[in-house]
């Protein structure tokens, strides 16, 4: 026996370089991500064209049919005025989705700009903006939203604005951290050496690289905003009934706990939507 034995034949090794994967392909998507995307697509479709998904009237009920349990005729049952809860959920999607969108846009635009300037300019701009972010972080988010909506007046758009304001600090922090990280990257210095100006480098190199994390956060915050806006609606800061924001539906349902579908149906839709958004956000982070 020789000390060293040769057991595998010397053969041409397969070229593993060819196995380098593209960034992502639909085939690699896990089933949970596909489900999450499907749910979010459905909710967006509800908010764009609710009448395609239900023929029932969300506002005027049939008093004779009040408080019916879920059935094939009424998937989510009916409420105390005999309205179809499924129809109310579908018609409520538009308001819930739009207000969450407003909140995220405010957070991304204001917070993103603050973080971008703070991270890229540094110096006193950074110091001033950092203190501002500290202040926003020091006030509990939900309380901040309550204060802002109190000052603006109670309605759904204002709850969206308040939610957006309360998210500014988070976006500013993430954007600032990403910009600082990217600014120190070798390829940014390389671009300076290739004759790129400050603003060119910011626009073409720093922003595209930093925006990936902000996109991930924006999706996450979209879900979170739905929750915050629902909570504000639940506490009565949004539009009054017959509006059918998901939070408002649950709030109304809580007075009829003997007919639990009034709470569980809209709650289930809310949870499924937010859970899907969280999954998509995680997926975006993983495929980075």
């Amino acid at each position, binding site marked *: 026996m020789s000390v060293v034995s040769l057991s595998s034949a010397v053969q041409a090794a397969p070229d593993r370089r060819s196995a380098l994967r593209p960034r992502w392909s639909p085939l690699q998507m896990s089933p949970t991500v596909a489900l999450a995307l499907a749910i979010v697509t459905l909710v967006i479709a509800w908010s764009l064209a609710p009448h395609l998904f239900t023929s029932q009237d969300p506002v005027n009920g049939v008093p004779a049919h009040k408080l019916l349990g879920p059935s094939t005729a009424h998937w989510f049952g009916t409420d105390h005025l005999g309205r179809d809860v499924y129809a109310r959920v579908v018609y409520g999607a538009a308001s819930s989705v739009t207000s969450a969108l407003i909140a995220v846009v405010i957070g991304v635009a204001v917070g993103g700009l603050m973080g971008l300037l703070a991270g890229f300019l540094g110096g006193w701009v950074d110091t001033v903006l950092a203190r501002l972010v500290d202040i926003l972080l020091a006030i*509990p988010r939900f*309380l901040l939203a309550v204060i802002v909506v109190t000052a603006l007046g109670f309605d759904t758009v204002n709850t969206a604005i308040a939610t957006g304001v309360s998210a500014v600090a988070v976006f500013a922090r993430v954007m600032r951290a990403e910009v600082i990280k990217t600014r120190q990257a070798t390829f940014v210095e390389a671009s300076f050496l290739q004759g790129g100006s400050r603003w060119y480098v910011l626009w073409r190199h720093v922003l595209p690289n930093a925006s990936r994390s902000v996109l991930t956060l924006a999706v996450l915050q979209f879900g979170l905003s739905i929750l915050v806006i629902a909570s504000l609606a639940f506490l009565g800061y949004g539009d009054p009934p017959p509006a059918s924001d998901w939070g408002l539906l649950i709030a109304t349902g809580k007075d009829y706990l003997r007919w639990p579908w009034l709470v569980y149906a809209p709650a289930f839709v809310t*949870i499924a939507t937010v*859970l899907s958004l969280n999954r998509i956000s995680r997926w975006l982070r993983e495929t980075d």
Partner: protein
Amino acid sequence: MRNAYLRYAGIRLVQAVVVVLLAYLFTFVVVSILPGDPVTNVLRDPQNGFTEEQIKTIIAAQGLDQPISVQLWTSLSGFLVGDFGVSMRSTRPVTTLIAEVLPSTLILASAGLAVALLLAAAIAYGTQFLPKRLGQGIVRAFPSLFLSVPGFVIGLVLIHAFGFQLGLFRVIEPDSAWATVFAAVALGIPISAQIAEVLIANLDHESGQEYAAVARSRGLGRVRLFAKHLLKPSSLPVVTVIALTVGELLGGSLITETVFGRTGIGSLVQRSAAAQDLPVLQAVVSLAAVVFVLVNLIADLFYPLLDPRLKLVGGTERRPTSANESAAPAPGSVTG
């Protein structure tokens, strides 16, 4: 090292005071400048039945006829000595109003935090020690699920299941022991998710580190590896996360108190917001900021003492130096 720490502590303290003062200023600006006018909205609301004479008295007492800068000065100097003025709605001192309801909220918040910590620890433990399928597949999904449920829904589900179906507590006795326990659970669940997420991420990160493999190569078993090596570096950053959840606890109390019908800061805020009672809102927000800043200050001051890696230089945490080779070795390090 000692001087560096004192310097760091001093700078953090000054920063904390500045943030609290600025937060006060910010709230003042938001409630004074923004469009709503509490005088017309509340005082002249016929429901309240104030006469024109009474309204004048209230306006004078609140200083609402003064210029904004004078109002700010009065308000700020009151805040510095702990005087938050008088409630517009009930004409009682704000400090009294808050003092009445604060204990109930503190009990709820601390019970909620306890639930959150227990639950987070249980989830994190589960991901590491339960059988793979159970640990990976189910327990790992908990934080994400908890974060997707509106806080008030958890409360409603608990009331429906344990209050209505099982009859463990009665909704009309919100301060009973069982009601408090379930309120704390409703408050703690979303917060546990945040802590658990960080804890799990850290445990995964640390157990994937080279030093964990090397420690196992010294014959350490899973339990000793977890207890002696992974637990400390994984839970250190959680100190910071817990400090940050103080805000969530306060915000969550607002909702939980409403769902369970408890009196507390939350219900006070609810009533004051509905009545646009600005002095009360201003006071609650300022107090929340003080508590938040204080807790985070304590966490910041303790952290460098717990983590030997953090070297304090010039009042700030020492960031890892860049790959630039010109960086000098850290003071006090041994070169070989």
